[in-house]
């Protein structure tokens, strides 16, 4: 392998001139293959290359040339090659090279936006960009036309990627705390969101566009009611306390909830873009459809402390309307100050009774004269209005329309407008009258004897009340303290466990009921101390009580 040559006398060796035949050597295959590989790579690259587009943004924040990627469903479909200031220096133009498969992202109605970490209505998004840097989100358009220049959105569109689902429009008087991204929930599950809102053309209402994802969009039927579920709804009305909330995010940024009424025969899925009304709260939303409103006037000869506009009007215990006005009047003839109460009732809320009645009496609901005559016959049968104490705790009154066969006959003028329904004194007033009658009867009684008895009874009552004060009331106080504690802890753990809140609502409801019955008991005991000894008489009303003869 090793051939060393020693130095020899420097004799030039004969030089052989080699004639080179010019032939193509096999070695040329090598560069040809290399060139082919190179060309194939270039061609491959060229085929992979999609359109180049330009997107203008307000700022270049988060955009880096050759670094920022364009992603669709988290798949890279292109990258930013340059970021330049626009010629008018009012915006930033990012040149984006899209890949071949993303060709339809050059459709002229495609949208692009910068995805960075942001805290928005729908929660916190884009956390990963804190680490990886911002990227451009894209949504392909449907158009067949291609464009070169796009305007980037400042905020990500709430609904992207041609997501299955349906859009609906909600009609409301004001936006409330709703905003783009506010969630739409169904049975407290978020199923969609608010995508846009705009003032109606006349400026008198707001149209809110919502998007409900498939498959939940099927739950939206023609009868579905939407209500604003923003924030905490604490209501102290004639029906007691009620606390209602939706999810935490709707607590913070507003939300819309929907549900169809319980009984809905022949309900059909709503068509896309159907317009619904947005109610203020769940109760009004789920109330039976009101139908035609009927304005009535009630004239009370008594003070109506605790009757407020909005108080419910009940017919045989069914809520059919509400108080719309409470006005003091002056009666020149009797020199008294009666109270005129304006109410609005919705006969349709009587439901089946209403439809049956209409059918039976061949009554035309649109004819007011007809309605007045109908009411006239009811009044002849003893229909009277009465202001009743609905909630002893808060002292709220409500209006009850009831048949009272014993009521004195009144003359009803069916032509008078507004239609007036005669009233009977409220329950408290009746109590006072009855108490007076009772006192008169007592006056006629052998007082001495009774007084002795009464004295003993009163002593007993005193001790009972003491006991009540000592034991029961602190208990209530303790319960209230507990409730306050529970609310505090609920506040801190409000996170997402709505079942707890639901329980809380129930508890509060029950508490309301409990305190109401406690108050009733105390009231009753105040009026009928003897019942502590004798128990409650079978016919509960106070006027049925007979003076004791012992």
């Amino acid at each position, binding site marked *: 392998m090793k051939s060393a040559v*020693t*130095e020899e006398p*420097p004799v030039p060796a004969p030089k052989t001139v080699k004639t080179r035949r010019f032939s193509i050597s096999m070695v040329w295959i090598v560069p040809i293959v290399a060139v082919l590989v190179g060309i194939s790579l270039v061609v491959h690259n060229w085929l992979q290359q999609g359109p180049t587009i330009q997107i203008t943004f307000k700022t270049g924040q988060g955009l880096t040339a050759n*670094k920022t990627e364009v992603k669709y469903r988290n798949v890279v479909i292109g990258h930013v090659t340059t970021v330049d200031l626009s010629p008018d220096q009012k915006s930033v133009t990012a040149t984006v090279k899209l890949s071949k498969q993303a060709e339809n992202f050059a459709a002229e109605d495609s949208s692009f936006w910068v995805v960075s970490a942001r805290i928005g209505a729908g929660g916190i998004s884009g956390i990963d960009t*804190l*680490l*990886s*840097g911002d990227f451009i989100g894209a949504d392909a358009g449907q158009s067949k036309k291609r464009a070169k220049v796009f305007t980037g959105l400042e905020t990500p569109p709430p609904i992207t990627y041609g997501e299955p689902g349906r859009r609906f429009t909600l009609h409301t008087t004001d936006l409330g705390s709703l905003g783009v991204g506010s969630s739409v929930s169904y049975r407290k599950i978020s199923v969609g969101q608010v995508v846009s809102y705009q003032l109606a053309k006349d400026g008198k209402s707001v149209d809110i566009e919502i998007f409900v994802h498939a498959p939940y969009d099927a739950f939206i039927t023609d009868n579905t009611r939407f209500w604003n579920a923003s924030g905490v709804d604490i209501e102290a009305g004639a029906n007691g306390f009620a606390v209602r909330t939706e999810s935490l995010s709707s607590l913070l940024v507003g939300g819309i909830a929907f549900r169809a009424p319980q009984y809905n025969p022949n309900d059909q899925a709503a068509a896309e873009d159907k317009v619904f009304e947005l109610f203020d709260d769940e109760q009004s939303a789920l109330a039976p459809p009101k139908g035609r409103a009927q304005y009535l006037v009630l004239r009370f000869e008594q003070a109506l402390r605790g009757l407020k506009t909005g108080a419910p009007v009940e017919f045989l215990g069914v809520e059919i309307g509400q108080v719309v006005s409470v006005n003091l009047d002056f009666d020149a003839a009797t020199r008294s100050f009666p109270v005129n109460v304006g109410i609005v009732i919705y006969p349709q809320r009587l439901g089946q009774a209403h439809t049956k009645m209409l059918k039976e009496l061949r009554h035309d609901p649109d004819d007011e004269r007809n309605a007045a005559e109908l009411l006239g016959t009811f009044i002849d049968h003893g229909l009277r209005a009465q202001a009743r104490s609905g909630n002893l705790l808060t002292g709220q009154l409500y209006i009850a329309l009831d048949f009272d066969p014993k009521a004195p006959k009144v003359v009803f003028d069916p032509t008078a407008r507004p239609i007036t329904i005669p009233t009977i004194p409220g329950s408290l007033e009746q109590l006072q009258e009855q108490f007076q009658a009772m006192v008169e009867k007592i006056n006629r009684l052998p007082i001495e004897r009774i007084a002795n008895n009464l004295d003993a009874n009163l002593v007993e009552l005193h001790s009972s009340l003491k006991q009540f004060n000592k034991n029961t009331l602190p208990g209530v106080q303790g319960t209230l303290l507990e409730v306050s504690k529970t609310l505090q802890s609920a506040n801190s753990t409000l996170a997402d466990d709505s079942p707890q809140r639901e329980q809380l609502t129930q508890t509060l409801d029950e508490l309301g009921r409990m305190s109401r019955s406690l108050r009733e008991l105390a009231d009753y005991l105040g009026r009928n101390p003897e019942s502590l000894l004798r128990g409650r008489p079978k016919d509960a009303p106070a006027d049925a009580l007979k003076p004791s003869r012992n």
Partner: protein
Amino acid sequence: MTDLVEASQLNLVLCHTCGKACDATRALHECDRCGAPLHERKPNSLARTWAYLIAALVFYIPANLLPVMNTQMLGEGEDSTIMSGVIEFASHGAWDIAVIIFIASIAVPATKFVALGLLLVTVQRGSTWAQKERSTLYRFVELIGYWSMLDVLVVALVAALVKFQALGDIEPRPGILFFGLVVVFTMLAAMSFDPRMIWETRPPKEHTDEVSSH
């Protein structure tokens, strides 16, 4: 060995650029084939080699002490020197990589310093000790010279790749500059050394001049 003829005996001068044996009798200053300047020995070989070697030695200190690379992972920055990189690999069990980096980055420059220093000293003394081995040593130094660039290129590649903003970022640090300078200067030193001086038994000073003296 006595039958070997040196070029100077035949009045020949080697052209360093094209390898031609030029006829020195015509007192040429340039190679008649490629036009490169002709020298019997590389000019000022010893002085230049010493200068480059010392410069490289000076740079070798900051190259090893200063960090060559800064690794940021999740906001936590960490400077690493060449040696700490080797130790890191070794502690992770990657002995092969650790050895490669150690050889290329630390052993090779150090070997070059020692080898070139040895060659310079022996040549200056006109020593005849182990001439053939020293000649081999020189060729070895020339061969391994540029492999020290390995670390520079590794840092460059890694720094170019790991750019994930806050998640992870690797940046070169000034140590790599000095390291690169060490490599460049040791290469220059090896190039300016003339191995033919190994075979000269006379003190080399007369040969720093150009060939025209012959």
